[in-house]
């Protein structure tokens, strides 16, 4: 074996050993790119938004209720999308009703909650809804709650959509999931799924994508009809 080859093998072994030894800080560092957690500072609104049918951020209602108790003059803003098929047929409760119920159960009065209508499944749409509200209600500072790995992406959307003054008055609070966070995501299946998924969104954001509007959803009858029509209505 030549000296050059030996040297290459030693370097490779050292790199592999270093990666094994320092895998935790390396993986924590990778997750760090997904996280922006800003101090709440002097806030007067707390904003909760959906991610799919779920609230964005584990235990976001607990955190919102805590923030409300710390400052009872603040408002809770719900970015509630237009009802989807599931909500329209009554299979699930709407995000607004569900959030109101959960906040009320945590002793947040209904008068402190405002609903802002927005789009589903899109950070840009969430922030655009918030931007419209902030234009009508200038001078407010908002704490935007979201999942920990979602926070950098939402911050980026806020910086891209909001006016610079409004963007500075929106602070993103990153809520770790109870099953995983940036210190242990690689040990759990749901952790590495969330890590991978949010890295994809991050890359898409860097490449300038992701802001495309969601297509209008068909109602249940139209969906079923077009689904069957795809099989040329070969009814048995």
């Amino acid at each position, binding site marked *: 074996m030549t000296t050059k080859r030996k040297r290459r093998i030693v370097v490779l072994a050292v790199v592999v050993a270093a990666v094994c030894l320092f895998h935790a800080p390396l993986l924590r560092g990778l997750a760090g790119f997904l996280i922006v957690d800003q101090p709440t500072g002097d806030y007067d609104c707390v904003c909760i938004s959906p991610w799919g*049918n*779920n*609230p964005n951020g*584990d*235990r976001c*209602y607990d955190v919102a209720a805590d923030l409300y108790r710390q400052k009872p003059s603040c408002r809770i803003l719900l970015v509630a999308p237009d009802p*989807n*098929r*599931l909500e329209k*047929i*009554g*299979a*699930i409760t709407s995000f607004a009703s*569900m959030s109101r119920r*959960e906040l009320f159960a945590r002793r947040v009065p209904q008068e402190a909650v405002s609903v802002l209508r927005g789009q*589903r*499944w*899109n*950070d840009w749409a969430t922030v655009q809804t918030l931007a419209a509200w902030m234009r009508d209600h200038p001078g407010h500072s908002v704490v935007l709650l979201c999942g920990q790995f979602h926070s950098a992406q939402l911050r980026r959307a806020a910086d891209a959509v909001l006016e610079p003054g409004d963007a500075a008055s929106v602070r993103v609070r990153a809520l770790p*999931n*109870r*099953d995983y966070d940036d210190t242990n995501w690689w040990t759990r*299946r*749901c952790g590495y*799924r969330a890590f*991978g*998924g949010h890295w*994809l*969104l991050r890359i*898409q954001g860097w490449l300038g*994508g*992701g*802001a*495309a509007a*969601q*297509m209008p*959803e*068909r109602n*249940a009858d139209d*969906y*079923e*009809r*077009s*689904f*069957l029509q*795809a*099989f040329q209505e*070969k*009814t*048995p």
Partner: protein
Amino acid sequence: MSRWRRLLIALLLGAVVLASCWAIHPRLLRAAANWLDVGEQPRLAGYVMVLNGGEDTRPFAAAALVKARWARRALVAETASPPEVIDRILPPYHEINRQVLLKRGVPADDIVILPGAAATTYDEAVALAAFLQDRPGARVLVVTNDCHTRRSRWVFTRVLGDRARQVSFVSAPTDEFSMDCWWQSQLGLQSIVTEYPKLAFYAARYGCLGYWLAACGVLALVAGWIRRREAA
């Protein structure tokens, strides 16, 4: 040929390949999405199984199949509970599917919940295998989203073995993003791109990909050793 010249040619080739890919990237990306869809025409069956996830599409498609008499009864696998279900903020996913089937006109008696705590497509295939154990002649339509059909078919075939012939896959179309520009939408990106690593993971975890990779590694080592001996 000198080392630098070889490097230059490789760089040029790489640049040409990258430029070509960029020029036809919409076509490539569309093809990448279409490759995942292996849904078939439905055939007459006793059961239609709704895979969990995609609650805004899959159970609607399953209900349509039952109402159009492609299938008589609907199957839903019981699911494991994520945090929002544990906190009772949302009902379990199988319960959402059951509710949609009920609201869309499938009688309660015709909805069968397969017991277990399915967290993955693999778990759902195991639940169906248990259900089919004493129903050797039963035919099942499995309904899932278009981009999920290839992985589902792969894992169901793996788990069911010979009984996989009893099962066929029907695509429930996603209507929240267009397959023609899925890469521009957050949901589209998450649905399509994550399917590829999931397919690779399933192939390694439940299939023979790991063995194939190990065999290729051993072959590469042997080839390197032979080449070195010849050079010496």
